[in-house]
């Protein structure tokens, strides 16, 4: 059974048990399978059920999502390497507030606070303010005062939003590519590249004989009676 089929049977199995979704037409089941298939990650049936429940719910209103997107684009403006939309940052934040409920009040309240501030300062909502006006506002809340222990609410709100936006971006496909991370593929580790060793003033020379040589890693290991590797 391939993975997609496995997921399909898991979903249908839990449907049959009435655990997952009580009234669900076949059409919707297929949608569900597609949605889970988008997220290919090993879940237990209970975890799958929980994630499916969260994916089905909607916390933020459309206007809030619009504000989150606008804020996210101010925090990480689009570049040729990647955008907030490509990184699915708004979808990620929508999921996280359901997965970790303490985020809800800070984010929803913070968005309200932004509108309140803009109404008072500029006589219009955050989204309808000009970009210079928006930036003037962010300048007030984007720099925590390192001398004080308890930051103001609006500073905490922006820090949380910034954390979620930046982590959402750099855990996305475009973000990881932009960062330059090149692992998560089968590899034969044979130490730090020479030029980097040299730049940092290190060398393996003194103790190189201790380490493994990837070239003969597939030969069966054999030892003498003293624990010396002989093949």
């Amino acid at each position: 059974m391939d993975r997609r089929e496995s997921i399909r049977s898991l979903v249908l199995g839990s449907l049959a048990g009435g655990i997952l979704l009580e009234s669900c037409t076949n059409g919707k089941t297929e949608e569900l399978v597609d949605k889970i298939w988008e997220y290919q990650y090993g879940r237990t049936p209970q975890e799958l059920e929980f994630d499916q429940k969260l994916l089905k719910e909607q916390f933020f209103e459309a206007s809030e999502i619009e504000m989150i997107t606008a804020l996210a684009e101010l925090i990480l403006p689009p570049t040729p390497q990647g955008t907030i939309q490509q990184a699915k940052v708004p979808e990620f934040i929508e999921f996280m507030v359901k997965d970790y409920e303490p985020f809800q009040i800070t984010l929803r309240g913070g968005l309200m606070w932004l509108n309140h501030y803009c109404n008072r300062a500029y006589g219009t909502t955050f989204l309808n303010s000009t970009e210079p006006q928006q930036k003037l506002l962010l300048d007030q809340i984007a720099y925590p005062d390192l001398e004080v222990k308890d930051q103001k609410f609006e500073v905490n709100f922006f820090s949380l939003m910034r954390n979620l936006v930046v982590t959402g971006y750099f855990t996305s496909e475009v973000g990881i590519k932009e960062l330059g991370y090149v692992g998560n593929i089968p590899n034969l580790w044979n130490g730090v590249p020479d030029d980097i060793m040299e730049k940092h003033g290190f060398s393996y020379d003194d103790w190189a004989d201790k380490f493994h040589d990837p070239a003969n890693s597939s030969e069966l290991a054999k030892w003498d009676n003293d624990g010396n590797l002989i093949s």
Partner: protein
Amino acid sequence: MQIIEQPEQYDVIIVGSGAGGGMSTKILSDAGLKIAVVEAGPYFDPKDPVTQTQWKWPWQSPRRGAGTTRVFGEYDMAYGGWELEGEPYNHVNGTNFSWFRSRMLGGRTNHWGRISLRFGPRDFKVKDKDGLGENWPIGYQDVKPYYDKVDKLIGIFGSKEGLENEPDGFFLPPPKPRLHELYYKKGAEKSGVTVIPSRLSILTKRINNERGVCVYCGQCERSCNLYADFSSGSCLIFPAQKSGGQVNLYVNSMVREVTTDSNNKATGVLYINKEDRKEYALKAKVVVLAASACSTARILLNSKSERHPNGLGNSSGLVGHYLHDSTGTDRGAFVPQMMNRKFYNEDGVGGLHLYSPWWLDNKNLDFPRGYHIEVWGGLRMPVYGTGFNPNSLNEYLGLRVGGYGNGLREDVKRFYGSVIGLSGRGESVAMRNNYCEIDPTTVDAYGIPVLRFHYEWSDHERKQAKHMHDTFEEIIDNFGGIALGKKPSSGDFGLLPPGAIIHEVGTTRMGSDPKESVTNPYQQLHDVDNVFITDAGPFVSQADKNPTWTIMALAWRSSDYLIDQLKKQNL
């Protein structure tokens, strides 16, 4: 509701499928015995693509790897945590113990750090050195042949160093250190701290044709689908089944108690099938408990009968006592020379490539037991949390912290891989007054009385933690790093709560005197001769080492003895 009698008769029932239960399964089934393995969690095979998390990217999950559903992040391969739904535990007098359980075939072996250290000659006789605690009734020479066999069966990399209390074994070659580990080495050696290649149960070279060789993805905590790291399922239980052993697995089955008869023999176990929530009786000639030190204590204490009113094997009153965990405290450091790194694939093995075994003599110090140092860092795969406080390190460069805009992108790249973490993991002193016991006020979702814990650190551990932090700062300073945050300078000196290091040992300690111990030196209950314990319960002291390799060596030794006793018809 009636107890349902299972018709099968077994030679041995093994409760738990982690390191100890897995090894007992392998050795006893290879000897031709008919085995039932009873595991509280579901079946798990690291190869199964449905449950596999290895190789997954953060964007393949809607939470990007966050730890909201699994405490070490959702890709970590432990179905469990310090809190389990429906399985509570309590505390006595406001003391603290965090109890980690992993409910799945293979238990915690599916996600652990694979740090596999032999106890040395001094570790078995530590009372001789400092007068505290108790000596083991056995010594290194009793266990050495089994460590050797475990090395060859499971596979471990390391280097021969000739250190007296860090015995060498049959090692595969270790991987070369990563960049941050070389910084650590430079700083540590300047302070006279020993640094050697780590010793992890990961195959850098083939040891048989059934298991794959490491491909350096750095994800051992996700459990390897090539079987290139040790987990109890892939290395012990599946091979036992494949070599023709008679091994039946009872998964999702929580053992409530060991049953006994009027001849002072165990007859089997009672367990609850979590799926149908019914109670079953399973019969065998011998019961091996390997449910984890605290779970085994719980089962024994819940196995009350007329003949054993305080629980099975508890005539000494010591079941649950002398519970101890490793000490632990950590410190991070920013290394300005490691900013703006050139990226290359530095995943390496799933864990540290270098570490520091205990390098001092406690007679010159104000605390009795040692610790080892682990080191973390590198160009790891981004995961939820990457980019939090993206430029907080600006503080150390005299630059402004915070802001927004494309500068943040550059900050994330600039600082990536420039932070090193040091972790001290040490030996605590086993105390009678640190214990778990049955809490008569609470049952779990299966109606089984739960544990409550009483555990307090002493000045032995606090002074050790203070020494760890002093050492960390010196090493960090030596390699040109800047220690992050403030050094804990009072209270518990940053000691993590007991249980946090997940090395629970000592609840059914071994000894020659039945008044002072629960099992004999072969891990057989003094009180009932057909019950054995092969988790870390029988540990007398834990050393400044991770317990897994010793659990397996001792489980093998205990299983050999069990087979011999069966042959002699002594059980």
